[in-house]
């Protein structure tokens, strides 16, 4: 294949298929280049788990915000400017000494985009979707998280329009951290529920 017009060579069948689709949609007037660009740019530069981490850190330092987050997560997200597609309806579920929460979408890949971004491939993969509803403790152990037998595991299978985010517990030893420092230890996996925040961990 030659490289006409200085354009990058097509590297895979998937790339060719996507380029052909975009070509036809554009020629039919069904999509515009700049609208697609705007979505890509938003997910690459603005929308990601750093948004959810800010909400968690805020909830840890501000009891009023924590209450609003647990009552109406979409409203609490909107306070910080986060919302929209796959996040019009959100629910935060709080970990406690008695309960550990984890989220999944067994039928597809539902995930709270505005606060966590694009889901990781493993979250969308058959092994996670098949197993975490049936044997969550085993799956969590593979992620390095041993949940004690006396802690109830709650698995939230997102099947309707509600998107879930886990509100982890604030770890010991973080009393002196500022809100922005706390956000740094809240990783994506903590808000899916396959990890818990650890002092010294970086998001």
């Amino acid at each position: 294949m030659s490289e006409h017009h200085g354009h990058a060579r097509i590297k895979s069948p998937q790339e060719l298929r996507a380029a052909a689709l975009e070509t036809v949609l554009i020629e039919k007037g069904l999509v515009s280049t700049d609208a697609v660009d705007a979505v890509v740019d938003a997910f690459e530069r603005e929308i990601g788990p750093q948004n959810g981490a800010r909400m968690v850190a805020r909830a840890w330092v501000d009891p009023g915000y924590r209450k609003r987050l647990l009552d109406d997560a979409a409203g609490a997200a909107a306070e910080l400017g986060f919302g929209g597609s796959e996040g019009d309806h959100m629910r935060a579920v709080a970990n406690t000494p008695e309960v550990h929460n984890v989220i999944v979408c067994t039928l597809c890949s539902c995930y709270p985009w505005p606060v966590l971004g694009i889901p990781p491939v493993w979250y969308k993969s058959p092994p996670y979707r098949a197993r975490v509803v049936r044997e969550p403790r085993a799956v969590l152990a593979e992620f390095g998280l041993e949940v004690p037998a006396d802690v109830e595991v709650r698995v939230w299978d997102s099947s309707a329009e509600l998107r879930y985010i886990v509100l982890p517990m604030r770890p010991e030893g973080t009393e002196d951290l500022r809100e922005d420092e706390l956000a740094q230890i809240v990783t994506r996996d903590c808000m899916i529920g396959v990890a818990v925040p650890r002092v010294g961990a970086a998001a």
Partner: protein
Amino acid sequence: MDGIHDLGGRQGFGRVLAEPDEPPFHEPWEGRVHGMSETATLDPGFRYAIERMDPADYLTTSYYEHWLTSIETRCLEHGRFTRAELDAAAERIAAGEPVPRRLDPEAAVAARAMLRPRPKSTYSAPPPVHACGDRVTVVRLLPSGHTRCPGYLRGASGVVERVHAPMPLLDVFESEDGRVEPQAWYTVAFAAADLWQIAGPGHTVLVDLWERHLEAA
């Protein structure tokens, strides 16, 4: 649809393989597909089109290949373009022709606005049949087509944990070309031991289900 996508509780899959420092999109084409899916003029049935993929293909292709299939399938089925037009475009791209550009600044602003807080729609429907704390059973028989009722729950009983304001039943919306039929829906808690034989400490599975999926236990 009792398709291959309905994976909850299936056995035989191996470890969950996590990739460190995963980017939002692994290749630029994935971002283009995501952007097209979100902003193109497309017909309803995003997930139902994926669920109708060949089961072997479903398991062996990536997430964004599923999305590609969904956009192509719906456009072909609704006559937005033909297979011949798609194939011809692929030949031109393979021969080195660039993807054409079409600018629509208003559409770009609207695309970005979809990814920011926006007003919620409200729907009216008959009052909910079940209340918090009620014991309910998941129906065994459902119409063919798309459903948000996972197969692993059929016939199982659980307890209503929360009652939600009516939303369009997505079974109908996706299967019947966007028809809106609002119904009450619920978060229902199931003891894992009522779903599978569980060794060791059990757990709770909570699932969002519409009126159609439930009957009083």
